[in-house]
């Protein structure tokens, strides 16, 4: 399951015909401590029926990006710049009413922690039915039929009976399934899965991932899959986006990025992952240092304080100049393509294999 074989060879995403297109997204929070640049100039695209994986450390801006797509950021403290286009609709400037119509209907989200993400005060059935009734104008009865059907689909035994249960009467895995069922109630075109399996044990995790894939095949849903588990990503995603400090640092197909990563941070990520088929005596190499402060991000390349290869770049470009991310398969790094190739083959690959 953690092999890199199952990746698709799809070309790097290109703009216009994409189902979801994010361009130069900037999300800033004003906090007591100052302005936090949680997302800083992010662009990506997702196509129908495809899965985009996003990886990165906590605080790298993954979740914020996706909450912003849904418009669930706090408008009081957050400023959003750039554009998010879903199926031709601009979301950044959309009104709350318009967003409400889209949420749960055209775009849905599966949250990370099924323990807290379901309301403890209402039955699972009610929580499932609500969006269906709202978006489709369905009756209570229709909504219940649909909910039972969805619960069955995600593999909950005796869905009729469990319909009236409260979340606390469900096990962790069942709750996550219920979450997924809830997200799929209205056949969304875009599904954002924010670490949907992190809290689950491995067997359940596999079941859930299979379920998502099956559903994607059935409905042709576009999925954004957030995780920091590269194993899961390799299994699920078509394309991959690596985020660091609110920016995309590398983009490409899953196969490309995992096989031949081009950014020092990606190298670090891969090196710090244990492998089932790896040598158990081999030491893991963690990325040195700590994630950067988003209040006061480092100048130039945000990764430079932790980068082992910044000396390979001429002069002080790494500290002065922010590297840009080109279209398509690319990495935001000042190292030249040759340097990247050489370093990866000479220094990194041995550690991974």
């Amino acid at each position, binding site marked *: 399951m953690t092999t890199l074989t199952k990746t698709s060879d799809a070309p790097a995403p290109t703009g216009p015909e994409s189902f979801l297109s994010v361009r130069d997204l900037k999300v800033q929070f004003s906090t007591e401590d100052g302005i936090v640049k949680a997302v800083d100039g992010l662009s990506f695209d997702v196509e129908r029926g495809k899965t985009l994986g996003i990886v990165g450390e906590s605080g790298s801006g993954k979740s914020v990006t996706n909450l912003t797509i849904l418009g*669930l950021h706090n408008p009081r403290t957050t400023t959003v710049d750039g554009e998010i286009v879903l199926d031709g609709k601009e979301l950044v400037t959309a009104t709350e009413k318009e967003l409400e119509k889209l949420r749960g209907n055209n775009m849905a989200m599966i949250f990370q922690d099924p323990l*807290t993400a*379901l309301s403890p005060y*209402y039955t699972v059935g009610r929580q499932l039915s609500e969006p269906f009734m709202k978006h489709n104008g369905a009756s209570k009865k229709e909504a219940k039929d649909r909910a039972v059907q969805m619960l069955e689909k995600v593999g909950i035994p005796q869905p009729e009976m469990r319909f009236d249960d409260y979340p606390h009467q469900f096990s962790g895995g069942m709750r996550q399934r219920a979450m997924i069922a809830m997200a799929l109630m209205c056949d969304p075109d875009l599904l954002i899965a924010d670490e949907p399996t992190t809290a689950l044990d491995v067997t359940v995790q596999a079941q859930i991932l299979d379920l998502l894939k099956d559903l994607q095949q059935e409905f042709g849903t576009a999925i954004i899959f957030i995780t920091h588990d590269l194993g899961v990503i390799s299994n699920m995603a078509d394309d991959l986006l690596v985020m660091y400090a609110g920016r995309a640092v590398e983009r490409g197909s899953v196969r490309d990025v995992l096989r031949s990563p081009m950014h020092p941070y990606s190298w670090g990520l891969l090196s710090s992952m244990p492998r089932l088929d790896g040598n158990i005596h081999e030491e893991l190499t963690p990325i040195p240092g700590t994630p950067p402060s988003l209040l006061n991000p480092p100048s130039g390349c945000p990764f430079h304080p932790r980068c082992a290869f910044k000396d390979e770049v001429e002069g002080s470009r790494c500290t002065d100049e922010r590297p840009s991310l080109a279209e398509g398969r690319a990495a935001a790094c000042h190292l030249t393509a040759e340097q990247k190739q050489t370093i990866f083959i000479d220094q990194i690959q041995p550690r991974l294999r």
Partner: protein
Amino acid sequence: MLQFIIRRTVGAALTLFLIGATTFFLFVAAPSDYASLACGKDCSPARLESIREALGLNLPIAQQFWDFMSGIVTGRDFPDGHCAAPCLGQSFYSGDMVWDTILDRFPLTITMTAGSMVVFLVVGLGAGMLAAYKRGSTVDKVATGASMVLSSFQIYFLGPIALTVLVYSTGWMEDPKYVPITEDPVGWFVGLSIPMVVMSTIFTAQYTRMARASMIEQLAEDHVRTARAKGMSQKYVFFRYAWRGSLIPIVTILGIDLSALLGGAVVTELTFSLQGIGRLAVDGALHKDLPLTMGVMLFGAFFILILNILADIVYAYVDPRVRLS
């Protein structure tokens, strides 16, 4: 549910017994007793003895205590009549059955407390929710500021001001008085409106703050965000998802606040010269009236215990994760 009620009732009975015991033994440990007070001037030992006998003070203390406590369950016989269960004894001072006296006075305290509770829950929670809903707006700032300031005031400070302004200098309202709610609900409301408003002001302020904080906390909960992600409207999420959760800490605090609430009623009664349980407590202490004091303490505790059980039931109703057992 039934099991819960049985269990809690047994617990409450035990608590009442212990409170009764504490009250009783503290009281009899006091240096002066009613008999010597009642004996008055020119007190002969013989008369003192006969008074003590008439009051049952000549019996061993444990016996007196047992008679009193068992009387609550079985009733008691006094020389001048039977006192049906629940019998809280016969007041030393007035000679009335304490139970009757309390039934006469308590309606004031309880309806006034309930009235202000309705006021501060409705107004307090409402203002708190509104402030949370409109967080950062002028409404929020006004509500927060006002509640902050008002919660620093006191009943015996606000009471006289309210009286002066509303009654004595303008004559807009009459002096507070108690009319039984069963007789004349409007008269009851008019008569007690000033005390209820004064009493509830401080609580309103506190509950506004609490409701707001609780609501804001709830709004940050994952499940609220989930509901929003489902496309439910802001209002719907606010009033269905967040509001329910925000009640839980409030119900908990309310349970703890009950005795403070009763205390507030006592201060209010004293401030407005109303004849409720607070006045009775003062009289009991003043006249060294043991049965009266016992009755007041037990009844006060009973009131708190009952409302506590109610609070727990409400709690279970609000939060399905809690089961009454």
